[in-house]
């Protein structure tokens, strides 16, 4: 069995490395990246990943539109982002090279599949002359390898067709990258056994391809040195690698269990949220009911129906779907039922950029409904944080009898990081109560309220509590339909006050960095990693810069105004045109400055750092 062996070559120790695999969407680059990620996690590195899917699922082979990439950052220290630039780029064809090369650091390692640089491949990528021959890649350490040929040789004799043989090429590329960064092959060999066990020939071919790539690095003269990134000093505990969508789905199942409810997930397939539906549908033994609805409207309204009868009603989508759910969300606000609404944001408007990330749905989450229609909104900041955010959202939804909007984004949904598993006994029950049948004939008031202004969650099936709810304005206390002016004013204010009260029930905002100073960076959602890294870098250089990353976007943290006043400048970096900035300016009359990017890509640490430095001048 191939394993990490003593090598004759020099080993260079690194603190961190960033590798990107890129190729045609049929080249298996996501698998290559995922395997290297899992392996790096298992050897104890901290990791952050950035899968980048092509916009078109079936773009013609070899074209730029069909390029799929997977970037992985692994380190011996704590890291928060998948890296601004890559140290090593593996490009399986010319289209992948031309679309990814600009992210490779000067002097970086460039591994290309030489066999793909034929006339057709070059033409599809727009190259007139092969970049492998015209000296245009001189700034990099170029390794031009006949991967197609060498891979076919490796799997020769197994009776595979040429097409089948070429399908193993990603394992060849993986093997090479694994050697380069001294990663063990065992986890991938185990994966091959599990995945292809039923097909021994294919399994063997993949094993051979993996080893051949590895041995190529080890034995040929091409590479003079190997790199090593030792384990990171992460907090003690048990870990697993997790994507945002997985963490969201698992979080829902756990939150339901903690509250003794069962999940009803109404959803219509949409990128990049569908994986939540897929993951949830595997957990039916937790009583999870997944309902693939006929449309987004049925997805939300079925979840509302399920909430009415006592389930944990959840609906998930992305921006266009959330737009369609708007009327349903208003109904959930009016009927004051607990409901979770997940928006995995993507580039907009309209169909926009389905596979790319953006944060431009914040104002939609806060205000995108008719009437005065307040709803708590909370945002996850990293893939694993999706788990915690769901717990918090469900706690708020049931304590306050309200729908809660959870914001994630494409970057968090598909990106992964090591997740330190919570101890099961630390997951205390989320108490949910339902009124019991009245014993002495007292009249039930469905819109009576407790000290948090929450109304009772009375379940159908309970004798004596029969009541009717709906979208028409309710009379205070009785819940009967009521059109009186004074009552409407009262009810609008009650709903607003109830949402505002959530601020008293959640932790105060914390700040990373000095308590007062020159610049406060305020962010929310998936930009956390880039902002945290930029601010820490500047702190280590002695600058008075701090970072407040908001989880609670409605209501805003009760101490936020006071925090904002302690810094000379406030910078709000967002992947939109300034939506949180607008809210902060309106709410606190603060002269917040924006750093705004809408390219379908996350912030790089460098661009955030540069902006802060500019403000420090």
């Amino acid at each position: 069995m191939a394993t990490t062996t003593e090598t004759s070559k020099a080993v260079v120790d690194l603190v961190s490395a960033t590798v990107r695999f890129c190729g045609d969407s049929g080249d298996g680059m996501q698998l290559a990246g995922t395997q290297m990620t899992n392996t790096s996690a298992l050897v104890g590195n901290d990791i952050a990943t950035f899968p980048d899917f092509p916009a078109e699922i079936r773009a013609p082979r070899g074209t730029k539109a069909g390029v799929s990439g997977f970037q992985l950052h692994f380190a011996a220290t704590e890291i928060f982002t998948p890296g601004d630039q890559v140290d090593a780029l593996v490009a399986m064809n010319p289209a992948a090279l031309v679309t990814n090369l600009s992210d490779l650091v000067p002097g970086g390692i460039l591994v290309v599949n030489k066999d793909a640089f034929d006339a057709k491949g070059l033409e599809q990528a727009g190259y007139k002359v092969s970049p492998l021959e015209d000296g245009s890649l001189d700034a990099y350490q170029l390794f031009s390898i006949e991967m197609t040929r060498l891979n076919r040789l490796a799997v020769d004799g197994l009776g595979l067709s040429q097409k089948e043989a070429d399908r193993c090429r990603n394992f060849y590329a993986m093997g090479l990258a694994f050697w380069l960064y001294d990663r063990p092959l065992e986890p991938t060999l185990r994966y091959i056994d599990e995945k292809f066990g039923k097909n021994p020939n294919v399994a063997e071919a993949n094993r051979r391809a993996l080893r051949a790539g590895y041995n190529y690095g080890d034995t040929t003269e091409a590479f003079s040195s190997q790199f090593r990134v030792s384990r990171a000093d992460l907090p003690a505990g048990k870990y697993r690698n997790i994507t945002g969508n997985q963490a969201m789905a698992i979080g829902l199942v756990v939150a339901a269990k903690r509250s003794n409810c069962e999940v009803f997930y109404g959803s219509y397939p949409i990128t990049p949220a569908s994986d939540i539906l897929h993951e949830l549908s595997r957990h039916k033994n937790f009583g999870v009911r997944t309902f693939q609805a006929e449309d987004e409207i049925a997805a939300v309204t079925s979840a509302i129906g399920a909430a009415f009868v006592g389930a944990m009603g959840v609906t998930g989508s992305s921006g266009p779907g959330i737009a369609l759910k708007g009327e349903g969300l208003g109904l959930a606000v009016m009927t004051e039922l607990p409901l979770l609404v997940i928006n995995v944001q993507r580039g907009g408007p309209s169909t926009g950029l389905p596979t790319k990330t953006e944060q431009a749905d914040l104002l939609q989450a806060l205000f995108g409904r008719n009437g005065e229609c307040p709803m708590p909104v909370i945002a996850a900041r990293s893939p694993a944080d999706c788990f915690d955010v769901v717990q918090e959202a469900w706690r708020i939804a049931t304590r306050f009898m309200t729908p809660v909007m959870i914001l994630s984004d494409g970057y968090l949904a598909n990106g992964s990081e090591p997740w330190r598993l919570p101890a099961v006994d630390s997951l205390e029950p989320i108490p949910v109560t339902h009124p019991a049948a009245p014993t002495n004939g007292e009249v039930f008031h469905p819109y009576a309220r407790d000290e948090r202004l929450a109304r009772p969650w009375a379940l159908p099936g309970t004798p004596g509590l029969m009541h009717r709810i709906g979208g028409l304005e309710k009379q205070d206390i009785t819940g009967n339909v009521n059109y009186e002016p004074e009552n409407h004013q009262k009810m609008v204010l009650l709903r607003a006050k109830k949402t505002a009260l959530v601020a008293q029930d959640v932790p105060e905002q914390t700040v990373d960095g000095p308590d007062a100073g020159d610049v406060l960076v305020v962010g929310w959602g998936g930009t956390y990693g880039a902002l945290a890294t930029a601010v820490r870098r500047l702190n280590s250089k002695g600058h008075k810069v701090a970072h407040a990353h908001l989880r609670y976007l409605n209501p805003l943290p009760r101490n936020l105004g006071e925090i904002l006043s302690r810094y000379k400048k406030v910078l709000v970096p967002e992947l939109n045109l300034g939506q949180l900035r607008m809210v902060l300016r309106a709410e606190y009359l603060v002269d917040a400055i924006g750093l705004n990017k809408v390219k379908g890509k996350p912030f790089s640490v460098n661009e955030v750092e540069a902006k802060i430095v500019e403000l420090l001048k």
Partner: protein
Amino acid sequence: MSTDALPVLTANDFASDQDVRWCPGCGDYSILAQMKKVLATVGTPREKTVFVSGIGCSSRFPYYVDTYGFHSIHGRAPAIATGVKGARPDLTVWVITGDGDALSIGGNHLMHAIRRNLDINIVLFNNRIYGLTKGQYSPTSPLGKINKSAPMGVIDNPLHPLSIAIGCEATFVARSIDVNIKHLSMVLQRAAEHKGTSFVEVYQNCNVFNDGAFEYATDRNSKADTTIEIEHGKPLIFGKNRDKGIRLNGMEPEIVELGKGISVDDLLFHDEKAPEPSLAYLLSRMRHPEFPEPIGVFRAVDHPKYDEELNKQIETARKNRGEGKIEDLLNAGETWVIE
């Protein structure tokens, strides 16, 4: 205190404390009265019954029955009912809707609720007009009909609720008329008893905006000739003197007179249990004034029910893998320990 016999409910027990706000003389009153009777007869406890509605005059219905109720948003009642029944199969669910609610803004939900065959009962009050919004034409308004939003007459081809339901693979399809109270309660009773989605169209008079739309079917003098009561296993006979019948001529129905060489055996016999919906569809296409319009149960067949299947999968998963444990869920996949 437990007693052996459940308390016997009466129609009055199903009346809520809310004032009924339909226009005086509206056909909805009669449907409400029959529904309360049927609920009492069926005997499902009030707390186990949920009425779900959308928007429109008919959708006020849940306020007037003393069960659990959800007066939701326009067109979405079937989707809400899907969540209710999917999450709680122990509940009896009625959806009350109208022609605009079900066939226009909510068409998609209606279609999918029916094809999933959830065990719910959908009652569509068809008055062929928009009453709540004061008189615009609806998807069932006939061509040429003059009204507020079509002063020169309707130019949209109308939809026919039962044809739609049958096209959506409905397992129970029936029609009745608001003022035909005996027949209506029979049909509602049958709908309640059916396992799977029951779809009932009720001709309902909107005496304010579309008065007399169904006069042909309710008028004492004409109704025997303009409607035909269909019954399983029975020949299609109608007319004041029960001397006319429906016969198949190839694939087409035709009206024949009994006697004169045509006997009952030559007529079309109704089969509500026919596995193929062709007969039910053919009946749903018989329209006034060319034909007498059938009332009764068009189709009643048994098929898998979505809510039952959904919950069966949960049971199976629990049986095969045991009740899910948080511990296992968290620890799934490859894990590693950092000391």
